[in-house]
């Protein structure tokens, strides 16, 4: 009797495990609406916003000592002109170069140095979607003010994040200017791309540790979005998950005309790709259209996404953009 019960429990666990696995949690496409920014009335200096976890965050005034827990947040802070107000950042924040000289508060393997964060006496900790809610709760318990910036799903969402960070740091005007200039640049790309007829198929490589089953960007990622916007067709857009594995066979059938190496930082190059067994069948390899690419331009959800868009457009349609 208890043996049957045990087997039944086994099967239940098996089914339960397959459930969430069948519908993987999409990390790049948050189901909830974009974070709403409700600015306080102009007369009171305090700032009250609702963050990406649905928490209401209130600051007495613009944040003067900010600790950033994500590289994208660091980039956003500097881009809206709040660089001088940042006192600490996570290990992986490396852009702009000035950020590297700030205090390092950890972040590898998801563990942050809470003591170091507390010792910096921040009045705002800017967390991102790569930080766990556990961490946010822990920092809150230590009396810190934490704002959780949800990952954007579209460029519009990204502009909203810029505006939010501008409000939090007292650089709302500068943020608005930044958003305008970014929109202009994007419009320029759209205008240049619109009349073109050719939309080359693009394979964007994220990881090719196993060259017969490499990883590419699937639907719902910014890579996918920006490739479309830049006048290309993403080979991975028909796959099922954001960080999607594609087999070499499928790749051969898709036959991309352009290969963009997002893993160039890990040593991949046109030569290493051409040397892979079976890859010579691809049009991109035969024509030599294999380009290394700075993945940070399309994976960090900040203003440099527009840099990434322009870079992609230049690779896919050389000469069309100034």
């Amino acid at each position, binding site marked *: 009797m208890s043996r049957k019960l045990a087997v039944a429990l086994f099967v239940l666990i098996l089914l339960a*495990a397959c459930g*969430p696995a069948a519908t993987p949690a999409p990390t790049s496409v948050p189901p909830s609406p974009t974070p709403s920014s409700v600015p306080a009335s102009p007369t009171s200096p305090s700032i009250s916003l609702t963050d990406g*976890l649905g*928490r209401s965050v209130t600051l007495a005034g613009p944040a003067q000592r900010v600790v950033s827990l994500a590289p994208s947040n660091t980039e956003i802070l500097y881009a809206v002109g709040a660089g001088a107000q940042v006192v600490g950042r996570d*290990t992986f924040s490396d852009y702009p170069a000035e950020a590297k000289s700030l205090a390092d508060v950890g972040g*590898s393997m*998801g563990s942050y140095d809470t003591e170091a964060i507390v010792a910096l006496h921040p009045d705002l900790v800017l967390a991102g979607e790569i930080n766990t809610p556990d961490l946010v*709760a822990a920092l809150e318990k230590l009396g810190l003010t934490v704002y959780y910036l949800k990952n954007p799903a579209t460029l519009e969402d990204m502009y909203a994040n810029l505006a939010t960070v501008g409000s939090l740091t007292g650089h709302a005007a500068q943020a608005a200017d930044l958003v305008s200039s970014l929109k202009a640049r994007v419009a320029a790309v759209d205008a240049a791309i619109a009349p073109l007829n050719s939309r080359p198929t693009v394979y964007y490589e994220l990881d090719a540790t196993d060259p017969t089953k490499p990883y590419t960007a699937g639907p719902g990622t910014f890579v996918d979005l920006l490739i479309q916007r830049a006048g290309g067709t993403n080979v991975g857009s028909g796959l099922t998950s954001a960080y999607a594995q594609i087999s070499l066979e499928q790749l051969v059938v898709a036959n991309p005309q352009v290969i963009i190496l997002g893993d160039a930082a890990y040593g991949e190059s046109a030569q290493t790709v051409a040397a892979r067994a079976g890859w010579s069948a691809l049009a991109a390899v035969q024509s030599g259209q294999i380009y290394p690419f700075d993945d940070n331009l399309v994976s960090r959800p900040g203003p440099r996404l527009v840099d990434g868009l322009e870079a992609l457009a230049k690779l896919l349609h050389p000469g069309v953009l100034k």
Partner: protein
Amino acid sequence: MIGYGRSTLRPYIFSMRRLTPFLAVPAFLLVAILLSIAIGSVFIPPADLGRILAGWLEGAALAEPLKTFAFILLSIRMPRTALVALTGAALGGSGAAYQGLFRNPLADPYLIGVASGAGLGAVLAMSFHWPYSTLGLLAVPAAAFLGALATVFLVYALARVGKTLPTTNLILAGVAFSSFASALTSFLMLRSTGELQQAIAWLLGGATQAGWGPVLTVLPYLAIGLGVLVLSGHALNLLQFGDEQAQQLGLPVARTRTLILLAASLSTAAAVAFSGVIGFIGLIVPHVMRLWFGPDYRRLLPLSILGGAGALLVADVIARSVLAPQELPVGIVTALAGAPFFLWILRRSKNQGYW
């Protein structure tokens, strides 16, 4: 234990030697606790530590930088020290109990699959996006705890033969379920890549949640589990002679083994829920205690509990400081430090070859 009387007997345990472990091991634990509180990525000068303590005793308010230091001590280091100590205590105690229960020097708290069950529960919970609330934050530890307990019941049910619980069956069922759960866990981790890093970090072990909450949550389970184990010393001694002889000497074997198994598993589950899977403590600390202080489980259990707490505290201090501000998962430190230490201990004790 009583004495032998004088003359003919060679007294083998002087009363000093009997007392030594109960002085040495708590002293070790105390030192480890002090180290854990005093050391962190923010350097607090010893003089300031003294001033903070004086301030607390007087009830006076502290000025900066002492105020921040005091805050760090009270809100970050002390709760973490408490959680790590409790985790180490649970691992040491249940490791000793498992070694006694299975009469096997290779037994550790994860022998019958508790770690794999907890890992599966945790990764399952990580696959969902929980709302930001107290319940949501407790989701992963609760799932890990339930996964651990479910494993024990499953393995127990599979291994039972009538009224008895054969050791071999338990181990086999445990190993089978471990493999199954690990494979399923890996499969889940591959499918939901966003949580992959979080899952890996959890599986390698380390205190993830801060504050006194986890400590208070875990405390009742450990009080019960470890309490039962400490009182089971004599029973474990009897079980070393085998189930049959223990029964012939008057021990109700099936009931006792079940009780000890549940108590040890409860302690392990509580330890794993918040701290992930930390290896070696449960295997090595009881061995060290046995080699130094003898095979009597009435002493071995409390000593392993105290020693486990101290050892994990030391490992955690190392994990926190060696690469600050990066923090090594403490499971890596215990493995790297533990194995060579154990080999050294084995070499040193030539004549005490029996365990």
